[in-house]
Each structure stands twice: as structure tokens, then as C-alpha cells.
């Protein structure tokens, strides 16, 4: 239930790194209370500095379409930047399987740590400049993917994906 929100933990002494496991082995990041990855749509919109957000698909995978900048066809104004975002929560998935798949599909992989979780960034441009930030968490693996649709420059999608991942992982402490 929602009791989890009432928990807090104060750590004293030397910080321990969860090298072997994850710091949140019992945590679920599933779709609940109209939130994907524990985040409200408004938080995603704010994190990406977007003016508009819709979530056409929700479940273990959530899909968002956001727009940043001018949203009405206007004289002199540039076309709005469409930003596509997907969130995935695979409760029985693994970081290794996700990394192997991203590698096989030709992404540039950067290993990292996000909020004490083992993670990687995978940059692969297909229908735009795009990047996923994926972390081992709870019983499985979760990932945020950000794309600047149809764009090849301007902004770093990895940075935005990592921001969202960090926001999700932070919200459990």
C-alpha cells in the first residue's frame, strides 16, 4: 500500500556501496496511482522543461509525448520540439539482458552509477537524437528513454534520461 511513503532511513557512518545487490530489493516501480516510475506527469514535464505532455500508453511500459517551445503554428516562431519519452519497468528483468540488447542494436554504452544503483546510458539515434538510462532496481530493471524527435543536434538526450532515472530512484528514499 501507500505506507511506504511514511518510511525514511537515516544512514550514519561510512557510506556503503551496494556493489552486489541493489539498495532497494523489495521496491516496485510499477504503474500505480497514475504514476510511472513513481513520477507524476507534471514532474516529467518539469524535468524536461516542456510546455505540454500526454501519456498515451501506461503499464509496465509508459509512453509520453511532450512539446517544448512554440506549440501553435506562428509567424516567426520555430516549430516546437517534440520529445518522446518511454519508461520501462521489468520486474523480473535484468541489467545484463538490457545491456546486451542495447549493445547488439548498436548503441554507445556508458557504464555509470545513479543514486547508488548500477546503471548504464545507451545512446542510439534512429528517429531522432535518443538515449536511454537504465538501472538495476528493486527485483528487476527500469529504464527511461528520451528522444528529440527528428533532431540530430541541440540538447543531450542522455542527460535528460539520466535526470528522469535519478528522479525515480530518489523518490524511494
Amino acid at each position: 500500500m501507500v505506507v511506504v511513503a511514511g518510511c525514511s532511513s537515516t544512514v550514519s557512518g561510512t557510506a556503503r556501496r551496494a556493489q552486489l545487490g541493489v539498495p532497494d530489493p523489495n521496491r516496485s516501480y510499477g504503474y500505480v496511482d497514475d504514476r510511472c516510475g513513481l513520477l507524476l506527469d507534471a514532474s516529467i514535464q518539469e524535468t524536461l522543461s516542456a510546455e505540454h505532455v500526454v501519456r498515451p500508453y501506461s503499464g509496465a511500459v509508459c509512453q509520453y509525448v511532450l512539446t517544448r517551445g512554440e506549440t501553435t503554428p506562428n509567424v516567426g516562431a520555430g516549430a516546437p520540439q517534440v520529445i518522446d519519452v518511454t519508461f520501462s519497468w521489468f520486474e523480473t528483468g535484468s541489467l545484463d539482458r538490457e545491456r546486451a540488447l542495447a549493445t547488439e542494436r548498436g548503441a554507445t554504452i556508458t557504464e555509470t552509477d545513479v543514486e547508488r544503483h548500477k546503471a548504464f546510458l545507451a545512446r542510439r539515434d534512429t528517429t531522432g537524437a535518443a538515449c536511454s538510462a537504465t538501472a538495476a532496481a528493486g527485483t528487476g530493471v527500469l529504464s527511461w528513454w528520451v528522444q528529440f524527435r527528428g533532431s540530430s543536434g541541440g540538447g543531450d538526450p542522455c542527460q535528460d534520461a539520466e535526470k528522469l532515472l535519478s528522479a525515480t530512484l530518489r523518490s524511494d528514499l
Partner: protein
Amino acid sequence: MAARTCLSSLLAAAAASTILAACGSSGQSAAPTTSVPAPGPGFRSGDCNGITDADITAAAGAAVFTKAVVSDAGCFWQENSMFGTVGAGMGISTWWYRGSDMDTERSLEQKAGRKLTELSLDGNKGFKAYDGNACSIYVAKGGDVITWSIQTLNPATLRDLCTITEQLAQLSQERVN
């Protein structure tokens, strides 16, 4: 050392074990080692779960949908009727859940008020969920699920929505097993 403060201390002992689990207490024992059968292998799939733009055109008509997302989670073709932000996100999508329970999606679709029908594709069990503006197909294999969905504001201008997703799901299943 970690000092934990938790609402559980204020709650009845009967509820304590549940609450502790939710707090991620390390006092709980590890996952049971009983003989729960491990799921078999899941799908082996490429981008867009094996479906091309030509397949989308064949199933849904020409110049109606444009590919907008290709990610490791799946793909999305935006319906071309989008104007400004109206219609954003309407279109055809496919996702590959690498380690997820299909029943979770089933209960979400039920809650959304869609009609559900069980089905089987290429030897894998699944279901479809539909209403006047959407039709989704879910198919499970091992611990994986692959979905095909269409959502539109203009159902009257398209073929029967479930006919479109059934065709795509069938074709996709022939390529990911």
C-alpha cells in the same frame, strides 16, 4: 549502520511484516528457494518487434501513420492527423516487456473499461482489449510480453481497429519466436 524510522512502529503488529517488507528491511529472509518453475526463454526480437513501415501500410493503409519512435522498449507510429498538440500520441505502438507479468496489464485494461478476449498466436497465449477508439493485443512467452496497440481519434476513417492490430501481432509473432 542504519537507523530506520518507519510508520510501522506505530501500527498494529499484525501488519508489521507487510510494512517491513515495503520498507526494504534487510531483516527479511531471501527469496524462497522452493521449486517454483522458472519461466522458459522469452522472445528473441529486433527493432519494432520485426515489423516494417511497409507492414504498417499494408495493415493500416498508406500515408496514415509515420514512424516516430524506435527504442529498445519498442516503436510508435504517429497518426498523421496530429495538429499542434491535438492527437499527439495517437497511432500504432508495439512494446516488448523483457520480464513482466501479463496479468498486470490485463487488470489495467479491465480497469480502463475495455472488453477482453483471450487468444493464442503462434502457440503463445495472450488476450486482446478493445473499445471504440483502441485495440491492444498482448502475447506472452516465458517471462516476456509483446504488445501491439492502436489508438485513434478517427476510428471511422480506418479499418476495424482489432483487424489492424491482429494482423500486425500475427506477423510480428512469426518473426520473434
